[in-house]
């Protein structure tokens, strides 16, 4: 055994290219396997430490996950399977904190008193059964408490919200978001406080506002989801969104699935299942590529070891023993690569986190169990990588090897097939990268039908009586072109307004805007000719068409229609343009935001002047603003991130494949040395030799291209189905990917081919 090992080490040292490519190839790919596996493990174990995870469900319907406040209590009263429930909402407000005149932004989760009983969130101070018992109770995060109360306990202290609502701190929790799907917030307030915050007196009995997530805790050993049909029946009788057939299903989402749900929720982080699946496929592909490289190289290289094997066979070694020896060798090689990969993954951790916007922490991952599992995994990979080459290599008859018959077998088809497979992966990934990046760019740059450049949106935190003053103050600032007060903009989508029109349920988005809005947004309006009226509205073209109105309708639902606007996008491009109704803002209306259109030059200066003006009116609330175009671009974060991830993995798979293909071309050309010599002696030019040697590799790129095109066409078509507005899969995307693969193949093999072709034929024929 030791002797065999020594012979293997000598062999590795002698065949540097082989050793380098197999070990480096495996190390690189295992590095990514480690990083992605850790990421996947983190993502898949979100909420896994929740004690009640098997019993917690989020209630959704087929369209969204929001319900009105009384639904939880209704279900608990009708279905004994419901042990408790909590409604979840997020709220952000400026509060005054001790030792500071500054107002600070306080983000909170609004939850029922049962929250700490349903979810496992460790409390540093306070009792989980009572901590949210009273309406005005508030539990702070450890971070927030430490920041503003230092080492002293904040329990019993009070916090004032909006200068009018006082809440008492009843506890401090530790690490809420860690391994749960909840977003990071500064504290948790009692849900009922929302009634005070919103001046919503009948909150607990109002079915009208469906904006709140609802989590239900089922009693042990009951089957709450099986009650869905009865709940649906109940809802159809009593709950307007079901009665009016806006939605038709009752779905119980088990807690572990909420994180990957398509349905967005309140106060939670979510991840895309597609991304997870894509990553799983990528890890798998990267592993396969390295295994292929290893198998290919080992078989190609076998010629140089064939004599060793033949002699061992001649002196009586059994085939099984030789097979085991080869498998053991590949396991050793992969263990070496794995050790390097662990080291590399620590080096790459930060870069990986930055590039893919993840929060890996490898130090916590390498536990005994993890190492045990990965060791078994590595041995398995070693076994898989070793078995096929060992079967092929040891199959040869000793006499053939001595005679040199192995060389011919060595050129067999499988190594080409494996290279072809690598190219299929490379071409598919290139196509996917191009398509996904183009779709992301398309969505970011698409003409949305309104002006999105140099427009900033400020939150409206001032008294209505100061409206005019603030507007004229901002308007005076050099560089400011226009100021508009609005409730609803294309980037927040406005309010939803649903009603029955001609016996059919219709759904509208609704903006309330002042007259500056139209100019600022550069909307095209076709006037209807109706005389101006204070209650006049504008409809968009889609609404006019969808409702079957006249092309320039005079009135709609008792409102005079002043004009019809062009169709512009007021939600992300994942959605089709819907019906829109624009009202005129009234002085008593609740204003949401201030839009300021600025000139494209001296932007920082203009903004700092706006901040100053705003400061004067907002009683210390600092200005937080967002640019329209940046906000729109952030809608496509998911797609951009996916494109980035696939791009990096395409590059990685190209690197791994290129290493393998380069090494194979070296061995291939070595095997061809004699043939090259003969051809040159018989009149072949260097160019003709290069052509001959490259032809084989190019042939496989072409075959791979033919296979990759339908695969990627299908996959990308499927992916694009999720978008209402999308790019077309033009032929040139496929052609470009094929061309890139061809160039990669040529660049990879050509240098070596050139060297081989230039070699003096005398050298290759001399020693025959």
């Amino acid at each position, binding site marked *: 055994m030791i002797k065999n090992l020594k012979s293997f080490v000598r062999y590795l040292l002698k065949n540097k290219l082989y050793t380098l490519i197999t070990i480096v190839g495996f190390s690189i790919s295992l590095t990514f396997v480690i990083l992605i596996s850790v990421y996947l493990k983190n993502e898949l174990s979100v909420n896994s430490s929740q004690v009640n995870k098997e019993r917690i469900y989020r209630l959704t319907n087929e369209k969204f996950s929001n319900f009105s406040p009384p639904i939880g209590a209704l279900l608990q009263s009708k279905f004994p399977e419901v042990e408790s429930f909590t409604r979840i909402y997020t709220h952000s407000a400026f509060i005054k904190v001790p030792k500071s005149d500054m107002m600070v932004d306080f983000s909170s989760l609004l939850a029922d008193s049962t929250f700490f009983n349903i979810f496992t969130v460790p409390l540093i101070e306070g009792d989980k059964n009572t901590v949210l018992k009273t309406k005005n109770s508030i539990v702070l995060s450890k971070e927030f408490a430490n920041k503003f109360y230092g080492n002293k306990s904040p329990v019993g202290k009070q916090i004032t919200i909006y200068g009018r609502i006082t809440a008492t701190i009843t506890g401090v929790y530790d690490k809420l978001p860690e391994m749960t799907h909840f977003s990071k917030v500064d504290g948790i307030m009692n849900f009922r406080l929302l009634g005070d915050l919103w001046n919503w007196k009948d909150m607990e009995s109002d079915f009208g506002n469906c904006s709140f997530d609802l989590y239900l805790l089922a009693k042990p050993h009951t089957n709450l989801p099986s009650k869905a049909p009865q709940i649906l029946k109940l809802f159809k009788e009593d709950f307007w969104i079901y009665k009016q057939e806006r939605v038709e299903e009752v779905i119980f989402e088990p807690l572990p699935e909420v994180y990957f749900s398509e349905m967005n929720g309140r106060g939670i982080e979510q991840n895309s299942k597609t991304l997870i699946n894509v990553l799983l496929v990528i890890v798998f592909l990267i592993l396969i590529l390295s295994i292929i490289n290893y198998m290919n190289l080992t078989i190609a290289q076998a010629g140089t070891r064939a004599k060793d094997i033949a002699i061992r066979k001649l002196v009586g070694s059994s085939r099984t023993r030789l097979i085991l020896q080869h498998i053991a060798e590949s396991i050793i090689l992969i263990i070496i690569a794995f050790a390097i990969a662990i080291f590399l993954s620590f080096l790459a951790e930060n870069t990986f986190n930055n590039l893919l916007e993840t929060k890996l922490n490898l130090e916590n991952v390498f536990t005994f169990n993890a190492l045990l599992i990965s060791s078994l995994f590595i041995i398995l990979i070693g076994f898989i990588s070793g078995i096929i080459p060992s079967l092929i290599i040891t199959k040869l008859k000793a006499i053939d090897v001595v005679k040199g018959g192995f060389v*011919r077998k060595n050129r067999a088809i499988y190594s080409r097939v494996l290279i072809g497979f690598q190219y299929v992966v490379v071409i598919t990934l290139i196509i996917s990268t191009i398509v996904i990046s183009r779709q992301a760019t398309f969505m970011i740059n698409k003409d949305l039908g309104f002006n999105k450049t140099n427009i900033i949106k400020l939150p409206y935190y001032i008294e209505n009586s100061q409206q005019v003053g603030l507007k004229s103050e901002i308007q005076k600032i050099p560089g400011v072109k226009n100021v508009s007060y609005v409730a609803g903009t294309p980037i927040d989508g406005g309010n939803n307004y649903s009603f029955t029109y001609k016996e059919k349920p219709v759904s509208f988005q609704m903006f309330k805007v002042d007259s500056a809005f139209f100019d600022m947004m550069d909307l095209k309006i076709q006037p209807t000719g109706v005389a101006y009226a204070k209650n006049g509205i504008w409809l968009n073209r889609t609404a006019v068409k969808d409702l079957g109105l006249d092309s320039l309708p005079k009135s709609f639902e008792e409102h005079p229609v002043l004009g019809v606007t062009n169709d512009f996008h007021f939600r992300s491009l994942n959605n089709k343009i819907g019906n829109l109704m624009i009202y005129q803002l009234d002085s008593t209306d609740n204003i949401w935001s201030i839009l300021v259109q600025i000139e494209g030059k001296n932007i920082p200066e203009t903004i700092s002047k706006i901040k100053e003006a705003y400061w004067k009116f907002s009683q210390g609330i600092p200005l937080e603003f967002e640019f329209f175009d940046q906000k729109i671009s952030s809608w496509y974060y998911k797609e951009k991130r996916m494109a980035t991830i696939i791009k990096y993995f395409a590059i990685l798979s190209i690197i791994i494949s290129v290493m393998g293909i380069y090494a194979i071309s070296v061995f291939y050309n070595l095997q061809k040395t004699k043939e090259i010599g003969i051809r040159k*002696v018989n009149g072949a*030019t260097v160019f003709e030799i290069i052509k001959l040697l490259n032809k084989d590799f190019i042939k496989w790129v072409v075959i791979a291209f033919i296979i990759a095109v339908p695969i990627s066409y299908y996959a990308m078509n499927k992916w694009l189905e999720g978008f209402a507005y999308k790019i077309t899969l033009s032929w040139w995307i496929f052609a470009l990917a094929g061309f890139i693969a061809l160039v990669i193949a040529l660049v990879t093999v050509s240098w070596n081919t050139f060297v081989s072709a230039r070699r003096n034929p005398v050298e290759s*024929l001399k020693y025959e």
Partner: protein
Amino acid sequence: MIKIENLTKVFRTEDIETYALNSVTINIEKGEFVSVMGPSGCGKSTLLNIIGLLDNPTEGSYFFNQKEVANLREKDRTKFRKGNIGFVFQSFNLIDELNVYDNIELPLVYLKIKASERKKKVEDVMLRMKIGHRAKHFPQQLSGGQQQRVAIARAVVANPSLILADEPTGNLDSKNGIEVMNLLSELNQDGATIVMVTHSERDANFAHRTINLFDGQVVLKRTN
């Protein structure tokens, strides 16, 4: 036809200079059959490679049909070799993946001769070498003697004026060896100039004259 004067070939490694050929002067007339003999390492094959334009000399001049070819670039050497020089090797040097027909056709392909003409030429030469029935066979399916006939067929198919043979019978038994030598003699009688490196006295006697090399120098020229 071949006029070589003071030809020297030096092989240099990092610290050693080896004189494979040292001031060799040889003349070979058109239609001659010349054998080159000498002990291993005396420079026979180096001389043959230079005559065959596979290699350049370090010094000296080499006129082929009155044209100085000693210092041609690789590209020009290839061009000049095509159709002018045919090679026969001790180890046959056939391409394993090509059958007999394709192996013989090779020089014609690189001469860019039309397919129909190639077919005729290959069939003619196969007939002449008595290997027509083996056209579809692969080299490893043939005996050594048959392989060498294929190699000779390939060497002459383009009708070159010079045939270079490097120990053509070295890997053959005596019966096959004599057959190959008879073939070469026939080719010579048909007008081909032949330069043959050999260890065998018997083979050398087929030539018109023998040049003996020792340590890179011509030590004896003998007419058979």
